[in-house]
């Protein structure tokens, strides 16, 4: 493992983008920009941007709090305010952060919302989350966008029509009222044209894991790669530039036959290729990642990087049908797929990216992912005869991250993969 960690240009660009976003949010009251709180899965950032409003993603704030070791305190504060130990820790972290002054990752106060855009896609807890926020921010209007679930393995015209009607008659009028701007379809189309380019890049970037060694880690680094599209930049020229730069860097890595960059430098030997299902743990992100790269394990695909949109099955926004496209984008997010579709998608990843093993990181807080995961695992094991592993942690509650427990399980899993490789080689 090389200990030299040189920041690549794309990393610097992303950091600048994020800093600017939080600075804009910090100055929103002075600049008069309106602020919309919404969620990552099914985030219709393009529509928000078309009204010149700024998005805030409570999950992003929560995960940032987790990475900054603040979430434990926030969660305890929320529990002291009556929240159960049993429920989603993203919600509790967000409530705790609000109770503690709503200070964002850059140390600046995140402004209160002018609109709560409840685009609840693939997660019922979002409904409850915004019911809670609605009471913490009394008087703030709520625009609810119900995304139908792909229960029958497909998006029907009725599902799209339902969403488009909600956009036209519920969401857009509220955005017009809050922002003071009229809906501008041509502007939205222009933004969506950028999104379409970004989506192409996303697919190309995550498809590079076909190479050996894989030039990227599609889970631990992958969550950084999806940062801009899931924090308000999808559809912006900056996002197009960022992803173009990132893709260029990855192509260079492929040319040089380099493995992924880790916090401790380049991973030199690729021993295991894994597909991972489920979100990562944020409170111990570095330690968690290290457990993998120390063992030469690289993640070649992950479901979590598809939580804000699934593009590798062919979906792209169509700027000519902006509202229909936004609707279909929402319905195509990973947690809005039924379990059969998830199994198919994961099977494709395992096959296309030549994975040696499949691992579930089951998150206590997230029923949307966790309920049914054991069956998904069982199905993949039977269908593909692939070794499967299972670990448990939480999103942002440090009480549920047991380092030694996870390490033990991973070591056993890697031993199993090693033995299997030896058998196959013989």
């Amino acid at each position, binding site marked *: 493992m090389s200990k030299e960690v040189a920041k690549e240009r794309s990393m610097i660009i992303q950091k600048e983008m994020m800093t600017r976003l939080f600075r804009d949010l910090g100055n929103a009251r002075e600049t008069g920009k309106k602020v919309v709180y919404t969620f990552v899965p099914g985030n219709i950032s393009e529509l928000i941007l078309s009204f010149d409003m700024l998005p805030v993603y409570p999950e992003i704030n929560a995960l940032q709090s987790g990475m900054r070791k603040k979430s434990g305190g926030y969660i305890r504060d929320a529990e002291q305010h009556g929240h159960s130990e049993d429920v989603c820790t993203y919600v509790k972290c967000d409530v705790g952060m609000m109770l503690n002054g709503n200070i964002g990752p850059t140390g600046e106060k995140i402004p209160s919302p002018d609109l709560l855009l409840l685009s609840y896609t693939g997660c019922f807890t979002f409904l409850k989350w915004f019911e*809670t926020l609605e009471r913490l921010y009394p008087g703030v209007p709520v625009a609810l966008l119900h995304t139908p*679930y792909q229960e029958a393995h497909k998006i029907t015209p009725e599902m799209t029509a339902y969403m488009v*009607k909600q956009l036209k008659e519920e969401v857009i009028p509220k955005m017009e009222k809050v922002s003071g701007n009229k809906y501008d379809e041509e502007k939205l189309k222009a933004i969506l044209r950028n999104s379409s380019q970004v989506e192409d890049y996303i697919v190309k970037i995550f498809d590079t894991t076909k190479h050996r060694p894989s030039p990227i880690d599609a889970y631990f680094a992958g969550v950084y790669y999806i940062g801009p599209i899931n924090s308000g930049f999808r559809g912006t020229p900056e996002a197009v530039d960022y992803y173009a730069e990132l893709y260029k860097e990855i192509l260079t890595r492929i040319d040089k036959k380099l493995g992924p960059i880790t916090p401790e430098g380049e991973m030199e030997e690729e021993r295991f290729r894994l597909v991972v299902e489920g979100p990562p743990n944020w409170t111990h992100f570095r330690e968690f990642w290290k457990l993998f790269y120390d063992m030469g394990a690289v993640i070649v695909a992950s479901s979590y990087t598809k939580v804000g949109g699934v593009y590798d099955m062919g979906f792209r926004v169509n700027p000519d049908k902006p509202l229909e496209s936004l609707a279909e984008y929402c319905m195509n997010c990973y947690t809005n797929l039924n379990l059969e579709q998830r199994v198919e998608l994961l099977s494709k990843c395992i096959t296309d990216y030549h994975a040696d093993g499949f691992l579930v990181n089951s998150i206590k807080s997230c029923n949307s992912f966790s309920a049914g995961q054991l069956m998904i695992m069982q199905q993949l094991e039977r269908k593909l005869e692939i070794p499967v592993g299972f670990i448990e942690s939480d999103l942002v509650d440090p009480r549920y991250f047991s380092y030694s427990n996870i390490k033990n399980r991973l070591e056993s899993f890697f031993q199993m993969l090693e033995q299997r490789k030896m058998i196959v080689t013989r």
Partner: protein
Amino acid sequence: MNTLKEIAALCEDLAFDLSFARAREWKSQEAGRVVVGHMPIYFPREIIHAANGLAVGILGGGDKKLIIKGDAYYQSYICHMPRSIVELVLDKHFEGFDGFIFPSICDVIRNLSGMFQLMGEGKFVKYLDLPQNFKAHIGGTFYRHELQTVMDEVFKLNGVVITAERLNHSIGLFNLNRRLICQLYDIRQDFPWRMTAADLYHIVRAGYVIPVEEHNGILEQAVRLIQQETGDPMDKIRVLVMGAFCEQPPAGLIRTIELAGCYIVEDDFLLGARWIQGDIGTGSADPLEAITSAYLEKSTFSSSVYDVGNPKEARLLDLIRKRKIDGVIFAAPSFCDPALLDHPILQKECNDKNIRFISFLYSENTGQFKVIKEQVGTFSDSIKLWD
């Protein structure tokens, strides 16, 4: 049956018969009949009835089913009911069921629909996406299409055409069913000593697994009998129990609350049976529209519905006033996000309005009630002594 106790005993046997014998028997009596299982909370059973079917409520194994295999399908931090339902699937309890409906109430039930699909259980599995938009031309149109999809699935099985006449007839039967249940609740509000909450629970729950015509007969008898004075009023407080809308509390828990000095005069145990508040029109040439409108306009409140413009705190206060409640017991299943995330909101309202409450968690197979009895007993005493 001459007494409420006899009725309740019969209903308890029916309600917890995990072989669903009455439903199987009913199906076997005539060719073309179908049995469709549905999960909590609400499903308009009228549309299955009108298609010569029986909609059977699936509420888990409760404390009647030992879970062995089901635990292998769920992590420890997921609620209990889905694992008992999976256990029932694996032990073939649903053999002979033609289809399954999963109303959209939470992520766990949603993903359970996918597990049924993967297991190939039933001839159809339908996740019924109940709209969160309550405007007729938006959410109503979508909901109607969802219901039509269910009707189309049943039609594929038995070819029964649901005419307006048939559907209106079914609506009428379920209107009567809801009216009778509400009558029982209303009478019990004034005379809670005449029937225990557990007996009422069993009588209502029996309706989830038998034909509505039979259940209406039972309810009519029960309504007649509860109007006669029996027993003596006791010095108990009047409580509302809420939080149980999906995974059911064991009957022992309901009994424990009443034994610990409370009359449960309102609850959300079997909310689906009383979901529609009032009658659905029976004279329409388009009865499916009537069912759709009823959902949009006459639904009760629940943790699974976003309450934009209709805050749950206000509705809780209305219920407290209507039922003359002394205190609220928030009893929710462990790991139930929808119910548990409501509690801070509702409890704050109780605090602000000086309404006494307690809260605890349970699972459908909780077997030890000593601690809960002490907690509820103290709660009851504190209200009796100090209020």
